[in-house]
């Protein structure tokens, strides 16, 4: 079974985000970039499926500028067999990303597609579910356990209040939640070797997909600042303040 795993290049999660002075977007120049953490979990799950003998080939795919090939190299260093780079400098929204990925899936015919449940830049949480819909496939969103057997996959999902387990017909789309696994670090020889592997380059246009977004970004503003209050010296003082000043307890 072939596994397609989609990864996204995003601002590193440790970077302090700043809004541009003109309010057009957040500042992204000279900012450290990395693979979206949920995508790392998706790649790790693909590698584990291959180690278990359930996956025969792992194809990593990304949509983004030239520099996004770094994230594809990372995926290869972690265990992907080959990679497809859909190059664009446009801001690609989740719906357009899903349409590009659906086209790639049509060409690659994977048995399973793995993605992160959300990207930590747009925080949309849409692409995997949209891709499943476009593929006419079942979806296992927010997965914390995945077990493939024969023509189906059993997925345990993180839902409000607990866990839900589903059995999905293949091909299916699964989005990774935090507890699905703990991603490994790539080993240095693998990183060196990954640099030499060929990347397949294409574009949204070559795939016949327009990435013009109908969700227009009008501007970005900093969030309302929350100001710190006071330090209290004792539990007594805390209880007194909560009762008589904030009036949140009786």
């Amino acid at each position, binding site marked *: 079974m072939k596994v397609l795993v989609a990864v996204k290049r995003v601002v590193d999660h440790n970077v*302090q*985000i700043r*809004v541009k002075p003109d309010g057009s977007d*957040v500042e992204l120049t000279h900012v450290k970039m990395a693979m979206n953490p*949920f995508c790392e979990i998706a790649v790790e799950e693909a590698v584990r499926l291959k180690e278990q003998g359930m996956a025969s080939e792992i194809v990593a795919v990304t949509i983004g500028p030239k520099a996004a090939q770094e994230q594809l190299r990372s995926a290869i260093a972690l265990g992907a067999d080959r990679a497809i780079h859909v190059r664009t400098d446009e801001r690609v*929204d989740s*719906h*357009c990303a899903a349409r590009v990925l659906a086209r790639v899936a049509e060409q690659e015919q994977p048995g399973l597609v793995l993605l992160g*449940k*959300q990207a*930590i*830049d747009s*925080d*949309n*949480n*849409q692409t995997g*579910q*949209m*891709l*499943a*819909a476009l593929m006419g496939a079942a*979806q296992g*969103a*927010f997965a914390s356990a995945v077990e493939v057997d024969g023509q189906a996959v*059993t997925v345990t999902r993180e839902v*409000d*209040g*607990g*866990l*839900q387990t*589903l059995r*999905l*017909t293949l091909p*299916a789309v699964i989005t990774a*939640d*935090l*507890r699905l696994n703990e991603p490994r670090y790539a080993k240095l020889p693998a990183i060196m070797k990954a640099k030499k592997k060929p990347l397949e380059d294409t574009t949204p246009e070559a795939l016949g997909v327009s990435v013009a977004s*109908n*969700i*227009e*970004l*009008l*501007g*970005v*503003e*900093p*969030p309302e600042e*929350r100001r*710190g*209050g006071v*330090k*209290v010296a004792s*539990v*007594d003082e*805390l*209880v007194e*303040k*909560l009762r008589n000043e904030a009036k*949140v*307890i009786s």
Partner: protein
Amino acid sequence: MSILVLADLDAGRLAGETAHVLAAARAIGESVDVLVAGKEVQAAAREAAALDGVRRVRVADHDVYAHRLAEPVGALLVALADDYTHVLASTSSAGKNVLPRLAALKGVGQVSDIIAVESADTFKRPIYAGNAVARVKNHEALKVISVRPSAFDAVAPASEPAPVEALDIVVENTLAQFVDEQLAASERPELGGASVIVSGGRGMGNGENFRLLGGIADKLDAAIGASRAAVDAGYVPNDMQVGQTGKIVAPELYIAVGISGAIQHLAGMKDSRVIVAINNDAEAPIFQIADYGLVGDLFDVLPELEGKL
């Protein structure tokens, strides 16, 4: 303008989120229907009909909608969507699961997690874990939108109940089968709807010590939450997580215990009305946003606090 709100359910009853999503819907337009889809959901339908500003409740009560899997509920929404200009759901796990499926099947983009309605097509939503707020204009003919419940005040009860209409739309689902679910049986309120939340972080030291929060939660009728660090350390299950990748909450009172205050955690609770931080590190970032900070050893503070509440 005609708006459909997908109701959230909790064990066959209407979940609290729906009244908040209705408030967002009412800020968009006047004609608001609620869809209740599931199995044995008549009680939830009556509860939805009793909320202010609902034009009618549409009920799809059938085996195929049991457990509200994305495949059949998505297909049901597609069948209904042509009657509407907007389809809204909350950012509950069910809403996040099904709404993008509807959007893609209708060939439109989606706007996720709105916190303000500026007009029928322009919304505000947090990005980058709430470190920036984007203003977006949705140019799609059908506007598919998920709503952050804590950003909108719940609508009031209605003076007259709205009419309830049974739908006989039955879709096929051969793609996904429900196997089972493990839901935490808790006497405590849900994180999403609690007016008081007591959360523990890595400073709790282990899962067993979360008992210390339980005593305080009992006194305040509070939900218990956790930081991602506490979840990652295996102290408590993930459904307790508050933060960018967990629950986004805004209770009247949020008590953060042994939580340093990583931005990913703050993204999930900084809109709480009153924040209390208890931490032994006086430099912890959580104190920069807390209304009341208490520097001290939580193992001394918590039993004393429980005793004095």
